[in-house]
């Protein structure tokens, strides 16, 4: 991969072809630098800049607009009907999810690859699903094809999604609705913020404590302003969202996991509960179960690992990894790489052949024709700060 000229002007998608979230005008008012992302015009950063936005989220709290993501409600005759139907699409324990709890999930394909990653929460007898922006059309089609007519699949196009992340998030939200204080990591409940009913989960994509808040579109700006009014809350763009999630060791769909990656390669087997594994009460029954069960049994020949370049130079996605400083063998590739502002140096993750996946293995990354040392490391780079 090459670097670009100093201020490369990318072929801009015509503004008229881009979707806007309900917060678009607020982003402009806040000085957001708008870029095309997954078909939306989204703020990559605000005047504070990526570095300070990242550090502020880890020290105080940041507000992210993630309304480009897909929100979908599934409903049916009963919770059992909805949960068992959804289990035909994901290798997760859905039926066992208690009301008001959320879980991480994966849509798999027949080859055992990952079609998307998602969050799902039980809301009474319904299932509230949040999927990636770039995949949402395909995800909705997949759910409709597999689940209807017994389960109704309703894309919630009239709702915005905000993420409030950082150590101050709990105090900020609890001041608006004390019920937020009682929520633990991965709880999901309805809150009332200055009279606006919202659905909040205590989760996010930064490794920090925080909430994702689904808000009716018409109230989105009012709720965002309410949160931004707090002295500790700053608006944060997609640039810092990416460096925060990378330090937290969280996968970006399309970079770190994709349709050719199995959950076993991706080190996401923790997300497949026992009840859905071989000998579990509801084993298999999802796309690619045979392939995934085989790799669960045999292990995989490549693994997703944390990668710490030892110098100061960031190694970006696409960087090739070798087992020697000269000659040697191509043993893997970086799938996400950046500078980690909290880590204070370059951070990366990627895939290496199984024999190089042990912690502290010394390997080399090819950076502009030079092989520079990289250490295989545990993820995350920055310890998670969840409210368990």
């Amino acid at each position, binding site marked *: 991969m090459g670097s*670009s000229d100093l201020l490369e002007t990318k072929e801009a998608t015509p503004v008229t072809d881009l979707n806007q979230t309900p917060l678009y005008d607020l982003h402009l008012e806040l000085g957001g630098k708008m870029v095309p992302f997954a078909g939306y015009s989204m703020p990559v950063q605000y005047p504070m800049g990526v570095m300070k936005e990242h550090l502020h989220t880890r020290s105080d709290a940041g507000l992210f607009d993630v309304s480009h993501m897909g929100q979908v409600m599934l409903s049916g005759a009963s919770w059992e009907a909805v949960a068992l139907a959804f289990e035909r699409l994901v290798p997760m324990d859905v039926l066992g999810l208690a009301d008001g709890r959320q879980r991480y999930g994966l849509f798999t394909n027949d080859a055992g690859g990952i079609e998307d990653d998602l969050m799902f929460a039980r809301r009474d007898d319904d299932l509230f699903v949040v999927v990636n922006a770039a995949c949402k059309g395909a995800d909705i089609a997949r759910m409709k094809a597999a689940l209807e007519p017994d389960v109704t699949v309703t894309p919630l196009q009239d709702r915005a999604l905000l993420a409030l992340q950082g150590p101050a998030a709990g105090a900020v939200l609890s001041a608006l609705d004390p019920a937020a204080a009682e929520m633990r990591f991965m709880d999901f409940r309805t809150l009332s913020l200055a009279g606006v009913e919202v659905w909040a989960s205590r989760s996010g994509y930064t490794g920090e404590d925080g909430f994702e808040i689904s808000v009716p579109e018409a109230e989105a700006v009012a709720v965002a302003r309410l949160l931004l009014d707090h002295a500790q809350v700053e608006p944060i763009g997609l640039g810092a969202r990416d460096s925060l999630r990378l330090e937290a060791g969280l996968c970006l769909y399309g970079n770190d996991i994709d349709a050719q990656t199995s959950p076993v390669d991706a080190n996401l087997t923790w997300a497949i509960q026992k009840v859905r594994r071989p000998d579990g009460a509801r084993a298999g029954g999802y796309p690619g179960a045979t392939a995934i069960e085989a790799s669960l049994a045999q292990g995989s020949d490549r693994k997703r690992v944390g990668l710490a370049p030892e110098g100061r130079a960031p190694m970006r996605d696409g960087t090739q990894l070798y087992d020697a400083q000269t000659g040697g063998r191509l043993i893997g590739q970086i799938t996400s790489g950046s500078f980690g502002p909290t880590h204070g140096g370059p951070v990366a993750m990627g895939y290496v052949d199984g024999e190089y996946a042990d912690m502290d293995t010394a390997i080399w990354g090819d950076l502009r024709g030079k092989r520079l040392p990289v250490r295989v490391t545990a993820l995350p780079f920055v310890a998670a700060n969840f409210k368990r």
Partner: protein
Amino acid sequence: MKFTEEHEWLRVEGDEIVVGITIHAAEQLGDVVFVELPDEGTVVSKDDEVVVIESVKAASDILAPIDGEIIEVNSALADNPAMVNDDPQGEAWFFKMKASDPSQMDEFMDEAAYQKFIG
């Protein structure tokens, strides 16, 4: 001071030309976290990639503005890349060149023209 369309500034000091990036470029790049400088003594042609600048988000190149030899680099930038954001048109110069053909300087913009160029 002269300015290029690649957002570099050039300052003539005797028979040396000092090269850096503009305030506008530094603002657009955002927080610089890494700078890779060329070796002193490298002979370069106009538009050769001579410096790599990395921000949190991306890597960019600085191109040689003219033909010549790199006679000195600002090695302080390697230890403190944030200088590029703090003082791009002062302390944070990148390298000094000896021009093969000083007339190549004639095509570059003055400050007023550069300000107009960036709008």
